[in-house]
């Protein structure tokens, strides 16, 4: 899945490591599902359908349902699985954005189906890559906060679930989130 320069997670065992020990097919399937869910989310926004559900939670639920029976996933709790799925969402999106960025710049990975300069996707890709980079920075400052952002933004976990996953109070989640969000926003603004 491309290069990865992320720092370690709070508990010392990154989801990536867990995923690598997992069945390769299951890993592949998580990424495929993450990809499909991102497509679904994107198309809902494009159709501007106010009734459609655009919560990324749908993916995580369905992915869990689909993958729960595979040996490599069966031993993980649903909540932990959602954390893996959140990581997959981030990774897939970043990979696509990198790929597009490369295409735009005509790099060695340039693909035939290229993008017009200045379109929304080019900006979107740049923003996302900036967020990814800033999250790596946050992980060095406070791994738990980076993980929290990943779970909430990419995985759609709510405050209560995040609190449970990270074993902290909901008040702490709200407080940490607010600071992390504000700091990341300053980083994104600087990058753009």
């Amino acid at each position: 899945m491309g290069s990865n320069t992320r720092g370690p997670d709070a508990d010392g065992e990154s989801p990536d490591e867990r995923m690598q020990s997992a069945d390769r097919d299951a890993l592949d399937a998580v990424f495929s599902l993450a990809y499909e869910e991102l497509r679904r989310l994107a198309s809902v926004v494009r159709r501007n359908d106010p009734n459609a559900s655009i919560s990324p939670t749908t993916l995580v639920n369905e992915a869990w349902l689909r993958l729960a029976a595979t040996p490599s996933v069966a031993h993980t709790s649903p909540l932990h699985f959602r954390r893996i799925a959140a990581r997959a969402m981030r990774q897939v999106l970043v990979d696509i954005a990198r790929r597009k960025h490369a295409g735009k710049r005509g790099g060695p990975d340039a693909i035939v189906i290229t993008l017009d300069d200045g379109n929304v996707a080019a900006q979107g890709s740049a923003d996302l890559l900036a967020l990814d980079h800033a999250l790596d920075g946050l992980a060095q400052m406070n791994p738990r906060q980076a993980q929290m952002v990943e779970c909430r933004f990419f995985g759609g976990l709510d405050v209560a679930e995040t609190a449970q996953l990270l074993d902290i109070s909901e008040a702490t989640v709200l407080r940490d989130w607010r600071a992390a969000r504000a700091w990341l926003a300053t980083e994104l603004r600087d990058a753009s």
Partner: protein
Amino acid sequence: MSDDPRDPLDAEQWARVQQLFHAASALPADAWGAYLAEETAGEPSLCATVRAMLTEDALRGSLLDGGLAATAHAVLSDDHAHLPMETAFGPYRLLRQIGEGGMAVVYLAERADLGSSAAVKLLHDPWLSPARRERFASEQRTLAQLNHPGIAHLYDAGVLPDGTQWIAMEYVDGESLTEYCRTHALGLDARLQLFREVCDAVQHAHGHLVVHRDLKPSNILVTHAGHVKLLDFGIAKQLDPADSELSPTKTGLQLMTPAYASPEQLRGETTGVYTDVYALGVVLYEMLAGTLPFDIAGRTPGESEMLILTAEPVRPSVAARGTTQGADANTASWADLDVLCFTAMHREASRRYRTVDALIRDIDHYRRKEPLEARPDSTTYRLGKFVRRHRGALTASIGVLSILLVTGVVSAARIRTARDAAVVEADRAQRIQHFTLSLFAGGAESSEPGDSLRAVTLVERGVVEAATLGAEPVVQAELYQTLGSIFQKLGQLDRADTLLQQALRSRRRLAADHPDVARSLVALGLLRVEQSRLPEAEQLVRDGLALSQRVRPAGHLDVAVATTALGRVLEERATYADAITVMREALRLHTAIAPVSPDVVTAATQLGNDLFYAGEYDRADSLFRHSMTVAQALYGDRHPLVADALINMGAVRFQRADYAAAERLDRDGLQIMQFVYGTEDPRTASALTMLGRALVAQTRFSEAVPLVKQALAIQERVYGNVSPKVASTVNELGIIALREKQFDDADAYFARNTDIYRAVFKRPHNLLATALANRGSVFSARGDNVQAERYFREAVAVFSQTVAPTHVDIGIARVKLGRVLLRQRRFADAERESEAGLAILTSQMSPGASWVKNARSDLVQVYDSLGRSAKAAAMRVAQADTLLKR
């Protein structure tokens, strides 16, 4: 990224930044400046960071606040809006995008040279994952095999220079199934008609061993002309023995839609035809009720799964009230739809319709107002149906009703309807043929228990029809013959007997020397085999063969068929040498007529069996292999005849003491049997027994016992308690009990078998000998050497009358006999038996086989006791050699 605005903070600095940020944010914005100036004096960079954060906190306008959907949209949404329309997709030119799913984007395309349209499907971002590429390629392979008006055809496929895979397929301009039903306000019958079309298409796929696995309304379009088209075979599965499917631990990553997913999919278990049957049930439910059976929207995964695995959905008849299609939903006929629907989507795969065909038949029954074949869990359904149908006229007591039901004669009105319908049908001979074909030509799934009730009803109907044909005796006799054979296949031997005799009598009246008389004689003879009336069987078949040889040219199919039948009788009578001669001739005749034909498969298998029983394992093995090759050429890899051949080859390995190989072959065979017949069929039971035997031989008793007991229960249900088929399973249980030292149980099992074989064969038979030898083994294990000797001697005597003197079974029995003689210190007697046994065994078995070793160690003792030191030494060397090699 190199253009990083500033270095990240360290953990301590970050803690401080956050503390300041939270403290300041509790203040009004105009107080921030003063607060920070005081707190961060001399630290301008720290101050700037907190300041910027406070600003962003108030703005809430970053990517993080837009949500993931907006980001996904920004990153993904427009890439194919800029697809170069002139890119070459074979002969197709893209016109506009018509759809997009997670996997792929679909364009309407035009084929310039022909002016026709097509749908071109492109895989999104193929580089992302091999699983996605494989799924896409697999859909292409699947579609290429299918050719049905109800399935969108594959036209073409290719890969763009950047690796993007595409396929061009039939463009279907239509609405999804449920949408179509709604927008056209379809009534019940129109919905059922559409559903039936869906079933037809799915059945076609199943006929090509393709299971769709993702059936749902959005994958089923209805064209403007009102016809169904199945789309999206993206996660379809090719049923194939080479599939990883064969591994019992297989779990699939099944990317199905949870709302239509079967319980076995949710549990990650093996999927099959029954998985599609389930999804069809859910689709039908939705078409009837207008809602899904399980509302999983907004539920957590665990809840959804729990719901689908345990909840009872509202009956469609209740859910449909007040809808267009459900205008009469409170009437009794909707109760049948409930049964039909719930049978299709039964939680237990084994209780669903076995095939989509069976589901289609019930749809047709319903539409013709006939009783369904499906029954709800209690028997009250059938009774209720009957009463409803005849409420006006019916005054009979429930007792009378029950008798009618038990005999399978459903009702006079029913038969009248059937006859009226029959009269309308055109040509009678064609009807016979069609009728027979539709019932049994499919072969594989013809007489499964789930279907037999229905078959019996149909055949009974045929009998009534046939009785009206007195004016056309030739046709009538043909019908009786056909119906008789069908009853025989259904296990109703008495009914078969009556009909076959009627056919024979009627044909003899017409012309005593007619080829049809010969065919009747042979058919009746084969029935006698099943009735275990073997001398009569042999006489009938020999008469039939002689007549055929007289009135037919040499090499005629009738002669070949009669010869095969004679071989079968001789095999049943355990006269294997004669059976082998006859079957060689039968195989030669059939091969000359058609080298790749079902008859060749049958004849080769039968000859293989005879050679096997005669102890000629190499030749048996090559015939089983031949019959497998021909069966595969005829039917593909997943067919019961292929399974038979695998299991037969397993039996050869078993006989040669290569139990691991036997287990592998048996598992492969069992897998096919379970796929084709389900878990409750006698053929599955035989395969279970064989596998159990291979496990027992490897001393894996705890794995074997449940399999074998399951097999026995099935067989007793089907064949009754006194049957050779039951006996072979009882024998297996006896062997296990013996090896687990449960001697009373073991003796009871083997005694039951000697009784069965004596009752059935009424003369010496090698199976009886086996049962006797096994009883001997029980006494031997108990240390009762005198009783043991008695049974072993009886066994050897019976074997000698029925199999060749060099047969392995004789060898084993004599070695066993030698051992109990040795224990009685009758050394000279023991020497004779053990030496004879060992000579037979070394010519037939691998030197490491346990009986060979046993015989050698017994003989070492015998020679020592008799003072034959040279022989004892030679035997010790031979034994040590073998042990060292292992």
